């Protein structure tokens, strides 16, 4: 099958989802009102609450949700063949992610722009709110650990990416200084930043960097993991304007440029999909597709992380309620496009089926490595770049996304730890440095606890990260459904995805728990059990909250939609 056709079908379906399904949700279910006075007007303070251009908000929502995760997930999951990954990404984006992101923003806007955690507290109760915090903390913990491992792997597999990836930090620091200290023109600064980034990308292959085999008994991957956390700890303590803001910005621009390059190269190169539609000879140890597919691809099909973004800053800046459709649903379509690009790169970017099988030798072997290899061959065939440059480009693209997420993730973890310090009156934890150390320490413990002293098995956490992320999405869908039930509107479009997600999550956790216990991997078994407890609690909360509204639900089921 030609990859262009595959991409066209996927993009066409998502476009149709945006045009028809999101319109249906907007008019019939969420019933957006262009005259509703949004929090950005009612509570306007010129700081957090400020009416903002919908295209700018879409850009933000899209760039902050599209990171390394929608690349890694699909790139691992194509091991089952391209059809399952493709279907889950496309249908997930249309019926799950879009409705979820859109709903999170809508719920928050209708609740004074509060975060989804706070809305949960208001609607479901304090216990659910605390549960929310725990799940968020677990998501952040896992995302930081797994990204550090993924970045370490990329640095080892693509040594030419080391110089450009670290130079990007320098570029961001310079942009931040120019803008805040010199009041530089943003247009020229951005262009200059992008050009500098690409010059470093060009130089990368000439100065490949590899770390020594062992330092103080630590293997190369372990060294990179530690370096990444030292970086993340420092970066998360810096004021946001110094590094995070310009880094986020330049990454956002780079996302648009990178996606453009990938799709353009795809059209010119027109490769064929070499991976099987359904993989008949799965490598030994590959878990069953059902239910693992639905947690291996979290971001790209649906991800609870988006509700944090949507209800954190986005909802406070929505100008008109009708903008939510573009920002929320449109933002997740953007992420679906990135996941689709990852599927195309990892299934059509190899010359033969044997080459493809050579990469997908075991579960979790795909990831960024496969994306870089496959994507690079498409980009170099399509646009005539040297293979080294193309590989560097793709590796750096993924590394920058993962790096920025770590920077933000450690910062958020610190806030949560400080808040716990306040709630439970532990003075020490309210200190920023101590909280950062605890955050980074717990991530390191997870990375090495799961991956061994070399960090080699760190990617084992990936499906666990997916389950936690889906749990968060389930909680958000629960809140949105509850609001709909209270308004006497049909909740099925959010309730059915919620039930499906919670069921898949719990099944996947049980399956993995069994595997961890069989391998006597007690560390991961304990972690799995912890998430399982959280999942069961979420399901119970959902059940009890819905039971309270059973009168209204029965009315709705009988067709009493007002």
């Amino acid at each position: 099958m030609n990859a262009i056709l595959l991409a066209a079908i996927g993009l066409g379906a998502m476009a149709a989802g945006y045009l028809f399904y999101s319109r249906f949700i907007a008019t019939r279910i969420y019933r957006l009102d262009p005259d509703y006075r949004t929090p950005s007007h009612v509570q306007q303070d010129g700081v957090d609450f400020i009416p903002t251009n919908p295209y700018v908000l879409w850009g933000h929502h899209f760039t902050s949700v599209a990171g390394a995760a929608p690349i890694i997930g699909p790139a691992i999951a194509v091991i089952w063949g391209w059809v399952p990954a493709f279907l889950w990404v496309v249908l997930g984006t249309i019926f799950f992610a879009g409705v979820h992101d859109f709903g999170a923003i809508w719920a928050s806007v209708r609740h004074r722009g509060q975060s989804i955690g706070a809305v949960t507290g208001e609607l479901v109760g304090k216990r659910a709110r605390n549960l929310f915090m725990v799940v968020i903390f677990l998501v952040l913990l896992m995302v930081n650990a797994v990204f550090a491992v993924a970045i370490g792997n990329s640095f080892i597999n693509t040594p030419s990416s080391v110089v450009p990836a670290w130079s990007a930090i320098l570029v961001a620091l310079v942009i931040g200084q120019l803008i805040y200290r010199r009041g530089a023109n943003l247009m020229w600064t951005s262009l200059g930043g992008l050009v500098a980034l690409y010059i470093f990308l060009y130089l990368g292959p000439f100065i490949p960097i590899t770390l020594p085999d062992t330092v103080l008994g630590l293997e190369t991957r372990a060294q990179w993991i530690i370096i990444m956390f030292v970086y993340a700890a420092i970066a998360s303590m810096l004021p946001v304007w110094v590094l995070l803001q310009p880094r986020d910005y330049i990454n956002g621009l780079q996302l648009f440029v990178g996606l453009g390059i990938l799709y353009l190269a795809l059209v010119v190169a027109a490769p064929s999909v070499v991976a099987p539609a359904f993989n008949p000879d799965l490598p030994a140890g590959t878990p069953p597709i059902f239910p693992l597919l639905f947690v291996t691809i979290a971001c790209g099909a649906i991800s609870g992380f988006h509700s944090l973004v949507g209800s954190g800053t986005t909802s406070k800046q929505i100008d008109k309620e009708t903008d939510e459709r573009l920002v929320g649903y449109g933002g997740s379509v953007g992420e679906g496009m990135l996941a689709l690009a990852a599927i195309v790169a990892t299934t059509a970017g190899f010359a033969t089926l044997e080459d493809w099988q050579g990469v997908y030798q075991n579960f979790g072997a795909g990831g960024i490595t496969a994306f870089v290899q496959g994507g690079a061959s498409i980009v170099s065939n399509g646009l005539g770049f040297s293979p080294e440059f193309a590989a560097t480009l793709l590796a750096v693209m993924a590394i920058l996304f993962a790096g920025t997420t770590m920077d933000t993730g450690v910062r958020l973890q610190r806030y949560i730890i400080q808040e716990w310090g306040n709630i439970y009156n532990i003075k020490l934890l309210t200190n920023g440095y101590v909280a950062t150390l605890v955050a980074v320490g717990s991530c390191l413990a997870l990375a090495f606890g799961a991956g061994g002293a070399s960090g080699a098995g760190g990617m084992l956490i990936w499906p666990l990260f997916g389950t936690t992320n889906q749990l968060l999405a389930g909680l958000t869908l629960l809140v949105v459904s509850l609001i709909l039930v209270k308004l006497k509107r049909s909740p099925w479009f959010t309730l059915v995805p919620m039930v499906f997600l919670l069921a898949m999550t719990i099944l996947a956790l049980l399956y993995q728990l069994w595997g961890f216990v069989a391998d006597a991997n007690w560390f991961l078994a304990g972690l799995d059990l912890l998430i399982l407890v959280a999942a069961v609690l979420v399901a119970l909360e959902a059940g009890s909250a819905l039971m309270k509204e059973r009168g209204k639900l029965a009315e709705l089921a009988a067709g009493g939609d007002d």
Partner: protein
Amino acid sequence: MAESEQPSRWKRLGALLEEFYHAPYRGAVARMRRDEEDLFMLFVYAEMMGVPNPAGFYTLELQPLLLERFHDWHRRMGMDHSPLEHFRCC
């Protein structure tokens, strides 16, 4: 017609980029500015609260200039009226 539209479009793109850069961090940056300001105010009015300030001689000059900000500051710090006996602003 097209020529006169060109610069305005360029400017609009610039404004969009500007918003794209600032919008997500507006709150965080404003809070940080405020914290810095609070520290600065504490320096300027340190001696009045009995905290010895080696730079007191220099900060004294700034006090009348900051009176209005002092009012905002003590309210933000949770005090309805000036905390200083001999320094009333409201």
